[in-house]
């Protein structure tokens, strides 16, 4: 086994363990950690496949952004009886069915949409940058303006809340 495939196997094991933990654990903060392990595993997988820029972006956006936001929400949420929040689901079978359905849908759509088109994707950050700022400039800028509009909207909504 080469170092790359061994690393990939480790990354996938981490992802699986994290995903299973995120579903089965009861205490919310442990669920968050399991989710963090999963997200970090995805980053490790990208790294071992050679997409280092994508791996760093994964850590930046998902571990440093999304996960921190969720942990923040957990820490500031208080139950009225002073107990720590825990996850109790009464719909295990239904949730599993929905998850399986979404998974199947994603799998099928990805297979049919990209099944026989092999898009050459460069692994280097500079090629990615020239692609984003060259042929895909309009889409890139549109996404940027959209995100900026969302940020400004959040600021306006927050300010409105303060005045009230």
């Amino acid at each position, binding site marked *: *086994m*080469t*170092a790359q495939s*061994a*690393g990939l196997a480790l990354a996938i094991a981490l992802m699986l363990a994290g995903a299973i933990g995120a579903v089965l654990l009861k*205490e919310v*903060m*442990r669920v*968050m*950690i399991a989710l*963090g392990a999963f997200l*970090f595993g995805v980053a490790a997988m990208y790294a071992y496949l050679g997409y*280092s*820029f994508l791996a*760093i*972006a994964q*850590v*930046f956006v998902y*571990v*440093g*952004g999304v*996960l*921190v936001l969720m*942990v*923040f929400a*957990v*820490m*500031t949420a208080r139950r009225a009886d002073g107990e*720590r929040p825990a996850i109790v689901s009464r719909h295990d079978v239904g949730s599993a069915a929905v998850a399986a359905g979404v998974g199947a849908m994603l799998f099928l759509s990805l297979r049919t949409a990209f099944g026989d088109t092999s898009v050459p994707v460069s692994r*280097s*950050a*500079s090629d990615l940058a020239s692609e984003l700022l060259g042929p895909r400039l309009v889409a890139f800028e549109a996404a940027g303006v959209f995100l900026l509009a969302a940020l400004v909207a959040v600021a306006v909504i927050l300010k409105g809340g303060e005045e009230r």
Partner: protein
Amino acid sequence: MTSFLLGALWGVVGVVVIAGGAVIGVWWERKVAGRIQLRYGPQQIGPAGSLQMLADVPKLLFKEDVVPSGADKPLFKYAPLVVFAPVAAAIAVIPFAKGWAMFDTAVGVLFFLAVPSIEVVAILVAAWAQRNTYSALGGLRAASQMIAYEVPRALSVAPLVLLAGSLRPTDLVAAWRWWWVPLLALAFLIYLISSIAEMNRGPFDLPEAESELVAGYFADYSGMRWAIFMMAEYGAIITTSLFAAATFLGAGWPFDGALGVVALIVKAAALVTLVMWTKWTLPRIRQDQLLRFCWTVLVPAALVQLAIVGVVLPWL
């Protein structure tokens, strides 16, 4: 598998360097603080009290490791390690000499900026695991401050990347010219200030404001686990200073080879001293001042510096 073993070996080297540097850093901080505040500091053991660090380490190792009965035990026990790991990982991408870093990757600069975000999660988890209101508040303060100051920090490094045309730290060192220092003086200042805030050091040490929060997000930790938090703090000072010395101040310039590595370490040590000097000189600021300063002063200033570099770049 050799690359795996080599990676593990460099990992061990990085951890040893950071841990050793942290022990020296604690001693040096006490000396600097003593000089600034007219106190004694360590002076009894060895020349200038330098052997004090040898006494401190066993003391911390043998102290009782108290786990509060109400704490979430596994999270409480392992969170400090996850706080320390990203700090030790950050040293891997620092270019110690022209063309050499432990882990010379094409996205090294991003790697250096991204790893503290793992530390944020670990600090929040550690704060939560103690089941203590003071530490939870300290953790929330630390996280909000670290997330906010990540923005000016990343923006302050962006002009370097623009000038060098690469995200590889060794390319930054190779492309460095002396006139980068005046051109990027503002970026360097922003990098230093936002890094001090990112490390939760004074005057931005509100997460551990002892008058209100006891010791902040690690209030209930003791012995070696507490020492790991300290190691993470001093490790962050060292990696931050090394990175600044290597990229903003031209690494080993004006020397090459072994002498260049010495020059880099001297520059980094000067920056470490500056960071400590700042802590012991300036009073702590308030949380709202801290966040307002970030968003209304540092971020716009960093954007101005980025624009300046963008404008002059075609003529260089």
